């Protein structure tokens, strides 16, 4: 453990901050793809997650990007993500590739899961390019559950397709189709007219998702599940400088420094907000937001609820605006 790690209080049961993580490993997985292994600053467990979940990665340059978790959920001490260099990624992926190094510190939000693996008699996983990342823990789980599965994995070329070595162990359940030598994925051959007990999980570029969705248009709701990567551009937050929180009902204003949670500062100011898990998981500390722009780091709100900006979980969430107004 480095000196900087020990300077932080260990992450015990009463720690209430959005976790900060250190980049423990950075590896090149394919052309244009690196993986990052993240460990909690100060040590300790990271929040639990399920296959299909993603985290918010808050980069030192102030940008936030979402990345699917593609590691082993049985290891509570590390998260792994895969990052593709995207030319139009508004600086997030370029920063990860060019400027983020082992030992650097990043912020984490979530994990959240909009793409959960649900029970099925059989799974068909379809990955395009970096869309393989959420599917990696899914195939591991299907294997564990002994549910039959196939993975169709398409990409530009072998050299651009990440994690092939890890998939090799699964043998003929994995169908790798690099476009330059094998052409496009043969969806016609794989997608049945009616799903029966098969559930289809698809993640990849927009055109692939559109094609799959079109082919499955007549299926019952919930049998095709897709995850679309949307590069969400977030303004440079006040997170490095701290921010002010106005408590509208009690007519007070408190200042939350960069290294404290809203919940901690409220408690020190004698403002009681009931909480429980202090990880943004249980929802006990939900507080109404009357003004300002919350920086959501919880695992609970969906995209619409986040965008509404009318509530936040003060144990982990912060502020993008200099000034936040809470109904307290």
């Amino acid at each position, binding site marked *: 453990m480095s000196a900087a790690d020990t300077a932080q209080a260990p992450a015990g*049961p009463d720690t209430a901050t959005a976790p900060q993580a250190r980049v423990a490993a950075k590896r090149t997985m394919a052309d244009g793809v690196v993986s990052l292994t993240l460990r909690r600053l100060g040590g300790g467990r990271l929040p639990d997650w399920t296959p299909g979940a993603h985290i918010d990665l808050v980069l030192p340059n102030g940008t936030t990007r979402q990345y699917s978790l593609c590691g082993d959920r049985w290891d509570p001490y590390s998260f792994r993500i895969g990052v593709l260099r995207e030319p139009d990624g508004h600086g997030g992926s370029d920063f990860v590739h060019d400027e983020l190094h082992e030992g650097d510190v990043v912020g984490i939000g979530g994990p959240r899961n909009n793409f959960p693996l649900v029970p099925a008699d059989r799974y068909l996983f379809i990955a395009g390019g970096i869309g393989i990342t959420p599917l990696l823990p899914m195939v591991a789980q299907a294997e564990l559950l002994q549910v039959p599965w196939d993975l169709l994995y398409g990409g530009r070329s072998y050299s651009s397709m990440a994690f092939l070595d890890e998939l090799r162990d699964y043998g003929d359940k994995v169908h790798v189709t690099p476009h330059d030598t094998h052409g496009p994925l043969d969806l016609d051959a794989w997608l049945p007219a009616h799903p029966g007990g098969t559930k289809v999980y698809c993640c990849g570029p927009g055109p692939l998702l559109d094609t799959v969705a079109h082919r499955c248009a007549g299926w019952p709701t919930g049998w095709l599940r897709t995850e679309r990567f949307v590069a969400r551009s977030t303004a440079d937050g006040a997170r490095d400088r701290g921010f002010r929180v106005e408590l509208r009902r009690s007519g007070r204003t408190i200042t939350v420094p960069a290294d404290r949670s809203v919940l901690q500062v409220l408690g020190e100011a004698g403002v009681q907000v009931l909480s429980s898990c202090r990880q943004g998981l249980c929802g*006990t500390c939900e507080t109404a937001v009357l003004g300002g722009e919350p920086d959501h780091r919880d695992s609970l709100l969906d995209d619409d609820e986040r965008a509404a900006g009318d509530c936040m979980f003060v144990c982990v969430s912060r502020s993008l605006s200099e000034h936040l107004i809470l109904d307290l």
Partner: protein
Amino acid sequence: MPTTAVSTPLPSLGTDPFSAEVLENPLPFQERLREAGPIVHLSHYDILALARYESVHATLTDWQSFQSGAGVGMSNFRYEEPWRAPSLLLEADPPHHDAPRAVLSRILGPRALRRLRDAWFADAEALVDQVLADTEFDAVTTLAEAFPLRVFPDAVGLPREGRENLLPYGDHAFNAFGPSNELVAKGAPRVAELSAWVEAQCARERLATDGFGARIWEAADRGDITERQAPLIVRSLLTAGVDTTVHALAATLYAFATNPEQWRRLRERPELARVAFDEAVRWESPVQVFFRTATDDVEIAGTTVPSGTKILMFLGAANRDPRRWDAPDAFDLSRDPSAHVGFGMGLHQCVGQHVARLEAEALLTALARRVQHIELAGPTRRHLNNTLRAWASLPVRVHRA
């Protein structure tokens, strides 16, 4: 059952934690247990016990090392047949636990409950109005039991007839997590009948179309869970959603009846209702104990625990551990009870906690408005259960505001 061979000699206690004497007042035993060491051998059952906050919290959150799938009672499902099909939530581990938990978390989440808030507050007002026709009554039957039974079965979507089965069924289920003692034997004659009734209520056609039960079945329609899982998830609501809340409300009312200055504080600041409820859950811990089973040879506080060992976690003892709480025996609304383990912790943490808090907030708000003072009016009587800390009778006298 395998014997627990541990690497270092542990402190050992011979007391039966499920004896009537301990269940009547578990606090002295829990203190001895807490002070004996971070991990203690209970020779009466040859199991290991944790009673300090830190070790209980660590064990609750470490699902990788401490499984629920071998049962969260004394019975070890690796070797013994459970008395009913195991719960898909309480008695399951990832990955099987994931889908049922995700579905129920959403149905019982704070935002999903908003639509019930006004109705439950109005129900609480109506019930309190009716109860306050008398100045002396039994707070267990008239309030702690009556309010959850008034709002919760409706919210689930249960038919009217047969609701009187809910409390005895839950009581037996919670007894069954303990050893097969007289409390379990007492419930045994009705098990078949009560189980049959509960199972019948879990069918889609028995449930109203706008309740929690119907939402569980809708999740099966979307494929989020299977049709085989849906009735068992409804069963979890019926098993875990009634007795626990009843006893938590009774604990809260007892706390106020014996701490009049705290009642004054709540009357001055009714917005403390939620804090008061959680403080009562910390103080009295309606769910006292749960077991985990070591998935492998794992270490707890420097002791290697062999795979398959049953570990008994004393939630109530952890919630009064002076290492974690100042003046732990005081019921104090100025305390921050957050992060108590009365609802558990980690991925099995009580999925219905927001339902319980909403029920409590509604009832306490209505009472705080009408009742100036509440005090005990006669001898109280405990209801003994292997898992729950409960009251059979709380005679109270109130002074209306």
